[in-house]
């Protein structure tokens, strides 16, 4: 039943996508708008196909239908309900179902949003592009990543369940869908970019049509990355949240190019410039989501030669190449029209700052891309297995990050075209003082080291600048001064500043040590007292949890544990974290020794300001949400400069009648 439903869903989705692309494409080429309008039905069918496939898989997972290979490989009767549900995206094939479902959802949303403009060639070509992307993902589900393969389970068969790390924290149920909503969401602006290139309508119309879609996709990706870091921190037990590993890098690269686009698009909207750049950034963002999927899903991480043996690896890299080729060819063909007639008047202007910010974001993405693919290139060339460590990423990204913070402080107060020194002095005075005060405060409370202290100062500067904009906006417009792209953007800036400061503090002043303690023994570390109180064993259906009870500064007991899962005999640690607004103490169990004294070895990681990373993420999400809502439209007859005094002008002294 589940097998049949799933296969029917995938086949329906693929068939609808193919027929839809052919019909819409034919309608566009032959100028038959009635055919293009049929896209709404095809979109609905594609979505329904994805929904059916996802429903069938969820049903199979929930009912433990081991006649499906995917369920036999990843399901288990012992897996708790939430993780069982989340197993849909716990392995490759299931995650492609989720991708296809979300893509179908976005397709339907685009059709609904543009339902009155379906015959418009711009919308038509965008839908055609989205349908082609749908063909690719549904084809993966039919071919190389088929989740609906049958399996004959022996009597009494029970699967191993998902990877134990994927059933250790509820965040697993939320962060992958968020990431996918972000990744897949970028298909919409990409499709409109391609449509703009095909139709030659490379002006600002398509930008206005897609800016909210881009913001929503970016918001989801941001939330996905932050939740992923949180999950890593709460589950993996290494005492950190960002390790620069390929999976993290794969999610950060499109975020960086997407962020660059969100800024540079303002320059095109206002000044009609950076058209090639904006289209390139969007296409790069989408291409990077596919490259990221290739890096994380093709098996290339195990060995550069492994991906050729997995069908999905070859498919993804070909699709990536196709995206890049299509984009380059179309930009080449439209090159003349894309060239802007204007120029940036002064580097000290809003557009100058945005351009600088874009160069930095692009450099940031390039640094990470290079670091991520360098080991693959080396291995492909001479079979040497090398690794690019954390120092490379820290050294290269730190100066870029600091410069971006500086620009974040300057750019919001800059006017378009050019700024005078006096204007800058006036607008930056308070933010600069806040920056200096932050730096002094940081030094007084014990911050040391050039990079973190500068980061705190620049963070204060940028926060002051964003705060100034928000104060001015709310004075003018009341609560509506917090809504809209510009004002919501300033709240996002505040979130970024909070994260930047927390990142600088937590990565610069991390302290880590291991202690072997016997019951009742205590240890002092980084200003905290740890007392080992004993052990507690909890027997659950899926695992045996061996908790180590430790009091931190008299609070607790905190209970990091070693979990022995019923299937697979794997022992996985679960850390326990005591969070306060000033620092986090994270405990992980390394070993529990049997014997009379029952000593345990625990790892203690103390990092300042960690909780602010998640608070900053929340502020960014709130800001994005507020930015999505339409702000107050400026009335064309509104005065843009200060109002004139209502008092009658005084007569000059000594004036005579």
């Amino acid at each position, binding site marked *: 039943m589940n097998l049949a439903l799933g296969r029917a869903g995938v086949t329906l989705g693929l068939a609808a996508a193919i027929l839809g692309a052919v019909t819409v494409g034919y309608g566009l080429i032959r100028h038959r708008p009635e055919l293009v309008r049929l896209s709404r039905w095809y979109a609905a069918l594609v979505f329904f196909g994805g929904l059916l496939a996802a429903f069938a898989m969820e049903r199979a997972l929930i009912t433990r239908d081991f006649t499906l290979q995917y369920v036999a490989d990843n399901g288990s009767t012992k897996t708790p309900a939430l993780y069982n549900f989340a197993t849909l995206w716990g392995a490759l094939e299931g995650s492609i179902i989720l991708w296809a479902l979300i893509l179908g959802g976005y397709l339907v949303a685009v059709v609904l949003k543009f339902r009155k403009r379906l015959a418009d*060639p711009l919308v038509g070509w965008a839908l055609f592009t989205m349908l082609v992307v749908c063909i690719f993902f549904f084809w993966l589900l039919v071919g190389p990543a088929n989740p609906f393969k049958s399996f004959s389970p022996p009597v009494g068969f029970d699967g191993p369940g998902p990877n134990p790390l994927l059933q250790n924290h509820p965040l697993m149920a939320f962060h992958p869908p968020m990431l996918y909503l972000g990744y897949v969401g970028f298909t919409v602006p990409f499709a409109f970019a391609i449509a703009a290139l095909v139709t030659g309508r490379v002006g600002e119309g398509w930008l206005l049509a897609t800016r909210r879609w881009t913001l929503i996709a970016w918001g989801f990706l941001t939330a996905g990355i932050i939740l992923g870091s949180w999950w890593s921190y709460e589950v993996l037990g290494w005492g950190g949240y960002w390790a620069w590993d390929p999976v993290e890098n794969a999610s950060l690269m499109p975020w960086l190019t997407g962020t660059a686009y969100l800024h540079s698009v303002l320059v095109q909207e206002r000044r009609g410039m950076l058209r090639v750049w904006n289209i390139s950034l969007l296409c790069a963002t989408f291409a990077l989501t596919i490259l990221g999927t290739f890096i994380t899903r093709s098996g290339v991480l195990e060995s550069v030669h492994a991906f050729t043996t997995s069908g999905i690896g070859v498919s993804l890299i070909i699709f990536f190449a196709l995206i890049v080729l299509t984009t380059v060819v179309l930009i080449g063909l439209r090159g003349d029209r894309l060239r802007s007639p204007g120029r940036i008047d002064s580097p000290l202007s809003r557009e100058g700052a945005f351009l600088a910010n874009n160069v930095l974001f692009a450099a940031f993405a390039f640094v990470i891309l290079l670091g991520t693919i360098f080991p693959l290139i080396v291995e492909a060339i001479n079979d040497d297995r090398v690794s690019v460590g954390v120092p490379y990423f820290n050294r290269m990204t730190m100066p870029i990050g600091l410069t971006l913070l500086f620009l974040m402080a300057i750019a919001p107060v800059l006017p378009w075209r050019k700024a005078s020194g006096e204007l800058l002095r006036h607008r930056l005075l308070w933010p600069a003082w806040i920056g200096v005060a932050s730096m002094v405060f940081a030094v007084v409370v014990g911050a040391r080291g050039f990079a973190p202290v500068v980061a705190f100062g620049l963070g204060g500067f940028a926060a002051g600048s964003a705060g100034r904009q928000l104060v001015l906006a709310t004075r003018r417009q009341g609560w509506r001064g917090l809504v809209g792209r510009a004002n919501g953007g300033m709240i996002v800036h505040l979130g970024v500043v909070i994260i930047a400061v927390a990142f600088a503090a937590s990565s610069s002043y991390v302290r880590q040590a291991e202690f072997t303690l016997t019951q009742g023994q205590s240890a002092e570390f980084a200003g905290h007292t740890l007392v080992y109180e004993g052990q507690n064993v909890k027997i659950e259906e899926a695992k045996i949890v061996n908790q180590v009870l430790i009091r931190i500064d008299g609070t607790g007991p905190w209970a990091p544990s070693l979990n022995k899962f019923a299937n697979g005999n794997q022992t996985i640690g679960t850390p326990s974290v005591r969070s306060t607004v000033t620092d986090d103490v994270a405990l992980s169990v390394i070993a529990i020794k049997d014997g009379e004294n029952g000593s345990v070895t625990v790892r203690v990681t103390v990092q300042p300001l960690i909780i602010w990373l998640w608070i900053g993420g929340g502020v960014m999400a709130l800001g994005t949400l507020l930015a999505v809502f339409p702000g107050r439209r400026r009335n064309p007859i509104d005065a843009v400069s200060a109002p004139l005094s209502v008092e009658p002008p005084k007569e000059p002294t000594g004036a005579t009648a």
Partner: protein
Amino acid sequence: MTASTGGGTAARRAARQAATAKSAKGKPAATPNPSSRGRRDLDPDALAALEEERDFLLRSLQDLEREYAAGDVDQSDYEELKDDYTARAAAAIRAVDDRSAAVKSLRPQRNWKRTALGLVLVGVVAVGAGWIVFRNAGTRAPGQGLTGDARQDSSNLILQAQGLTGQAQASLQAGDSAKALKQFESAVQTYDEALEISPENVQAMTYRGWVLHTIALNSEASVAAQLDAQARQYLDEAIATDPTFSDARVFRAILERNAGEFAAAQADLDAIDMNAIPVYMTQMVNAVKEDVAAGRRD
């Protein structure tokens, strides 16, 4: 019949503008300034709309010819419609040409020097970044990721270091001593990381010392002596921390035998719990015992 009679306003407006521009000829040409022109004049979307309209009118002309040939349109209607379409298509074509020319005239000249400078800059940044990533790349230990690294606990770091030592031995056997040295150094560095978070880890101390001794075996005499002295320090420290840790005793006994300190070597050998050491080490211990008994250096 596909063209509507109400269409063509954009084309006509553009044609009127073009005509106005032509009538102003003879006056001194103003310097092109994008800000002084209507934004819409330079908007690619407006140009695309005109092109769409042009294509639409040309298609309508084709349709008209077809319908006329099929006898669906009478002569007078045909001529009237054809004149109308032709005039409108011509206006659209002129408008497209004029706008294209206007956009082209306002476009700044490409500055080749600046383009070249930009390309050179991008090249320098790319090569520089490539060099930096090359300098920062290290041997990938078994179990280690492609990039980045989660902070490992001491037992994982020791496993990583042991893996690197194994790789180094393989490189030595393959005759690539330079690569082996690099791998041994990575192993030492990894043991240091383990000792940083777990300063009393006797396993890390012991095997760091042993790796230093292995490097010494493949070094020149003067360097080898220094390395062996350092190795000895680590082994002494490990035994001081945990006198029952047999591995450290075995390794120190080997160093003592090599140095001709047979009494000290014998004391360490006697302190070894033979049940606590792995099989491969048993053979090693027996060989050392024979050497010490015979007063024979390695």
